[in-house]
């Protein structure tokens, strides 16, 4: 039963590892440049999941201050002016009796998603240009074409 609990308790992490290895394997094994980018996307997605998983606190609610009327101003001021020891401010201690999930990983991963989109866009643009000038997006064909052009005397 212990291993069952271990598996269910770490379900998200197991999915992360499977996705990560799948993505990395696709990048390495395929010779098609578009499929390489797909693999890269799967690989990056696994990291998004890793971050989202760690933001969840057991029994935590979405991180929106519940006593908004008098609470938000006060907490904002505390965080802004005095350096709060991190252990106190981010540990799963209840604030006004409510446990909040940690919002920071979500914010971080939003940034990483944007980075991923930008990388994918540049990658696909490169694939288009490669298709235009080589007439193929298969790595073997590209290598063959490069050997051919290297064998010709330089202009």
């Amino acid at each position, binding site marked *: 039963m212990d291993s069952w609990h271990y598996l269910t308790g770490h379900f998200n992490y197991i999915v992360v590892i499977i996705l990560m290895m799948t993505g990395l394997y696709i990048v390495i094994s395929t010779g098609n440049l578009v499929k390489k980018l797909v693999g890269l996307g799967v690989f990056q997605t696994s990291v998004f999941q890793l971050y989202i998983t760690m933001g969840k606190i057991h029994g935590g609610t979405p991180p929106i201050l519940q006593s908004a009327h008098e609470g938000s101003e006060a907490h904002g001021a505390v*965080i802004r*002016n005095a350096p709060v020891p991190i*252990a106190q401010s981010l540990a799963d201690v209840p604030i006004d009796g409510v446990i909040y999930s940690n919002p920071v990983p979500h914010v971080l991963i939003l940034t990483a998603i944007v*980075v991923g989109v930008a990388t994918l866009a540049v*990658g696909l643009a490169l694939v288009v240009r490669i298709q235009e000038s080589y007439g193929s997006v298969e790595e073997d064909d590209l290598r063959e074409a490069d050997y051919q052009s290297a064998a010709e005397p330089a202009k």
Partner: protein
Amino acid sequence: MSAVLLLGEMPPLFSPAWISANAPALLVVMSLLSGPVAVLLWRGRLAWAWAGLISLLAFALTLILYGQVLHQGVVSYAMGDWAPPLGIVYRIDALNMLALLLVAGMGLLSVVYGLPAVLREIEPKKQALFFAAFLLNLTGLFGVSITGDAFNVFVFLEIASISTYVLVAMGAGTDRRALTASFNYLVLGTIGATFFVIGIGLIYMATGTLNMADITAQLHGRGDDRVVRAAFAFIVIGLGLKMAMFPLHTWLPNAYTYSPSMAGTFLASTGTKVAFYALVRFIFGVFIPGSAFDSVIFDLVLAPMAIAGMIICSVQALFQNNIRKLLAYSSVAQLGYMLMGLSMGTAAGLSAGLLHMFNHALMKGALFMGAGIFALSYGVRRIHDLRGMGQLMPLTAAAFSVAGLSLVGAPLFAGFVSKYYLVMAALERGWWWAAAAVILSSVLAIFYVGRMLEAMYLRKPAEIDGAPLKPRPAPMLALVPLLILAAANIYFFFDASLPKGLADAAAAALLGGGAS
């Protein structure tokens, strides 16, 4: 001292006091915003002038920061007045300063150098976009060098990397292999960045903070922790990919060879150096040096890889026919020297590694500039075609030779100083085999640099239809930065106090001991 200003004391906008108080933020924000402006300017020359102006201002801001660092030791700037550790802090000490000076200086020289090459190599409607990508690259490198927040490093690293992919791919105007080189770099660079961000995530899981200083504070007294150990491994591999640590360097030679001259110059002298800076910062400034897994990774992983890179890539450089590919392989070998300094784990070794980082940027920058000028004037790309360049382009060839000799580590040139300190640090640590490897790799460098010098000075110029080539003047704009760098290569032999002082201070601050 904190540069945080309370509301009400804010000096008027754009006054000298305001600029000096906000210099860290201005440096990054200015270069970031200038990128889109370069796109709007549209004309190649206009965008070039704009990029030149911005790099000049950035260099001035870096000098202001250098003054502050000399004066105060550490400058820290809380972004948006949010106090660390929750807010993002820009923290500049001697180590950051060395990286910043390198990026700002080489950025300025590369832009000045770049105009003739860009006008020739890149089609007119893409020239402004090229300079925009360059400015974004500058932003990313500044950001990595200046920030004190671990996740911020990732974001800026990716700004720098994505713009680098674009810069490399722009070489497609002269050689379509730039496209495949850029694609391979993109795939490996993204894997590296993703490994890095996994490492940051694991650190965040273990410590609940992203501020570098706070991570170190949280890790103290933690003991051996498997999550932290995994984070360390992910970060070292991720940054290793970005800095082309020996077995992870396969993206580098083609990317340097087929990129446009200006991009090649700037990348070779800054890109991998900034990744090396980040590696140093994470190994010594975030994780705690001296803990059990550090010494294992130094002795059994980093040092052997450094030596393998130094020797194998020097041998590979020997057999290259393309000038820039030779220089690229030599770059991987030189990164091995820096890594060797780091892996000694002593203040003297680290200081020598950082000094070599600075010097290598000077010499590789000059060598790539020289190679670019030869390519621009005579279309020279192969070593064989360098023949007679000593007669045809005496100034360029002389500056190229100075940088080449500096690369070998000949006395009278900057390269000698850092190699000397590296060998002394290795002997002091008892690593005679490391000192031997440095010397062996330098001997190999004599051969591959010698091949180029021999072609330039001892061979007759090529003949076309029986008539020898005529001398052609090098473009003045390209020649001046090259001469400045060559002069710097000589100057820093006689007076290495600027980089050595910063490197010593950085090593002392990171390792808590005095450097020799």
